[in-house]
C-alpha cells in the first residue's frame, strides 16, 4: 500500500445550531486504501461525509483533495474532481428504470471527459454502458432486473445502484455511507468481493459502517468517532482493543462501576 495522501481532512468542525456534530476531526486518506469510519449512532459519521462532499458547509476546518483545498465547493464540483459518495438513505430516480438511473451520471461533464466512452450515439451507447456498469456491480445482465423501475427494486439492488452511480463517474474516491446496512448476511457476502475489486482497480474507499465484522474484513484502517470527536484511528484489531472504543460502543465494560 502506498502512503500517498489523496484526501486530507483538517480539523473539521460543524455545529447545527447548538449541537456540535463534529469537532476538530482530522484524518488522512491514503491512495488505494479502504478506510472504515465507525462510531455509535449520532457520532457524526454521515455529517463528516456531507462536509467532505460539500453537501453541508463546514463551520471551520479544511478538506484537501490531492493537496488542493476543496472546502466549501459545491457538491457537483467535488464530484467532478472524482470524490463521489453514496447516500445512506438510497436516492435512486424512482420513476426511471434501474439502468436509466446511470444515464444521469454518464451525462455529467466528468463522465464525458474521463469515461472513455463517447456516449449518446444513435444506437444508444450510453444505455449499453449503463448495463455494463450494472453487470459489474452485480445486476444479472440477461435478467429483467436492470430494466425494472427503481421503485420496484429491493434494498440490496438499490445499494448496488448507489455504488453504480459512483462508478459511472470513474471516481478516484468513493465515500460509502452504510452500504451494508439493511442487507442480509448473504447479500453482504456477495458485496465484499465487489468492494475488494474496486480497491484493486485503484479506487480509494471510505466506508461508514455499523456492521463491524464485515467491515473489518475489508478495511485497512479504521477511524472511530464518538460525539463528533475522533477517538482513535489505526488497524481494526488495535482499534477494537482500545478501551475508549469499547466504552463508546458498549458502555463501560466494568459493570462494578454501576453496582
Amino acid at each position, binding site marked *: 500500500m502506498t502512503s500517498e495522501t489523496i484526501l486530507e481532512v483538517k480539523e473539521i468542525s460543524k455545529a447545527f445550531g447548538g449541537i456540535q456534530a463534529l469537532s476538530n476531526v482530522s484524518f488522512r486518506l491514503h491512495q488505494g486504501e479502504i478506510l472504515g469510519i465507525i462510531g455509535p449512532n449520532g457520532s457524526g459519521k454521515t455529517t463528516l461525509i456531507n462536509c467532505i*462532499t460539500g453537501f453541508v458547509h463546514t463551520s471551520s476546518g479544511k478538506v484537501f483533495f490531492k493537496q488542493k483545498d476543496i472546502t466549501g465547493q459545491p457538491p457537483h464540483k467535488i464530484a467532478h474532481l472524482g470524490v463521489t459518495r453514496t447516500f445512506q438513505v438510497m436516492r435512486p430516480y424512482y420513476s426511471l428504470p434501474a439502468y436509466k438511473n446511470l*444515464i444521469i451520471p454518464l*451525462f455529467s461533464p466528468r463522465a464525458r471527459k474521463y469515461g472513455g466512452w463517447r456516449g449518446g450515439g444513435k444506437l444508444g451507447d450510453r444505455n449499453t454502458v449503463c448495463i455494463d456498469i450494472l453487470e459489474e456491480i452485480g445486476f444479472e445482465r440477461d435478467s429483467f432486473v436492470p430494466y425494472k423501475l427503481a421503485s420496484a427494486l429491493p434494498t440490496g439492488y438499490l445499494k448496488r445502484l448507489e455504488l453504480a452511480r459512483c462508478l459511472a463517474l470513474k471516481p478516484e474516491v468513493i465515500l460509502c455511507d452504510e452500504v451494508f446496512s439493511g442487507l442480509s448476511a448473504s447479500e453482504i457476502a456477495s458485496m465484499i468481493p465487489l468492494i475488494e475489486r474496486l480497491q484493486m482497480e485503484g479506487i480509494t474507499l471510505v466506508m461508514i459502517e455499523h456492521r463491524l465484522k464485515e467491515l473489518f474484513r475489508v478495511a485497512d484502517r479504521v477511524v472511530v468517532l464518538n460525539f463528533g470527536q475522533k477517538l482513535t484511528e489505526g488497524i481494526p484489531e488495535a482499534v477494537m482493543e482500545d478501551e475508549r472504543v469499547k466504552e463508546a460502543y458498549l458502555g463501560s465494560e466494568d459493570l462494578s462501576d454501576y453496582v
Partner: protein
Amino acid sequence: MTLKGGDVRQERIDRGIKVRTGGIYAVSSWKEIGYLLIPRLVLIVGLLILPLAVTNLYWQRVISIVGIYALLSLSFDFLTHFVGLVSLGGAFYVGVGGYMAAILNTKLGLSPLFTIPMAALGGAAICTLFLLPCLPLRGVYFSIVTLMYPLITARIIEALNILGGTDGIVGVASFPNRWVEQYSLFGLLLLILFGLRRLVNKDIGLVFRGIKDNDQAVKASGINITHYKAAAVFISSGMGCLGGAYLVHIYMWSGISQLALDFSIIPIASTVIGGGGTLVGPVLGAFILVPISELLRAFGTLRIVFYSLILMAFIIFRSEGLMVYAQRKYHQFERWVKV
C-alpha cells in the same frame, strides 16, 4: 374487493401490440404501424382541420386563444412533471413576450414574422434571467415566488406609468389573415409538443427528470443542477413568451391584462384535467376547458360557479386526468383475477 366468486383484484396487462411496438420491430406490419400512428394522426389532423371547421367569427377568435392556452399548459406540464419546478409565473411569461413583441412591432416596425421568434427567444432569456435567483428554491416556495412576478410587474407598470401604463401599447400589427395566424400557431404547438416528447426521453431529458426525482443525487453525480434548471426554465418560459407574442398580435394591443393570473391558473387546471406528465394531456385539457369557459358566458355571473363544478367533477371522477386514463385503456387490458 370481494365479489360473488371470492376475493378478486383487477389486473392490468400491457397489450401484446404495445409491447411489440416498443422496439424497432414496430415497422414489421401495417397493424403495428397503425397502432403507433393513429393516435398521433388523430391529434395532428384534428388540430389542422379545426380552423377549417369553425366558421363562426367569434369561435374563430376563441380557438386562437385556446392555442395560446395550450402552449402555456404544455409549458407548465413540462416544468412541473419533468423538472419538478411548479411555476405559477405563466402570466409573467405571457406579459414579457407580449410587451416585447409589441415594442418590437410599434417602435422598430418589425413584422410579426420577426417579432414573434424574437419575443419568444428574447423573452425567454429575460424570464430566465429574472428567475435565476429563485432556482435554488424547491416545491411550494418556488411556486409562491414565481406567482409574485406577474403581480409585481403589473403594479410596477401601473405605478411608474411605463410601457404605456394602464393604457398599454396600442397599434400593434395583426396577422395578414386568420389562416396564417391559426395554422402557424397550431403548427408551432404540434412542433413543440412532439419536440418536447422527444426531449424528455433523451439523455438530457433524463437529467431533467432526475432533478425532479432527486436533485441531491444529481448533484452527487457531478452535474450542476442550476444550469439544467435554468435551461428548463428557458424552454418553458420561451413557450409562454411565444404565446404572449401571439396574443398581442391577435388583439393588436398589449397591456397589463396580459399579466392577469388567468395565464398562470388555467394551465394548471388544464393539466389536471388532461393528465399531468403526458404533455399531450394538458393540450387537450386546454382545448376542453377554454371553450367550456366561453360557453358558460351565457350564464353571466354564475359562470364561475358552473366552471368550478365542472373542474371539481373532473378532479373527483377522473383525478388521474383524461390522457392518463385514455392511454391506459389504449395500451392495456384489464381483467379480474382471483386472489
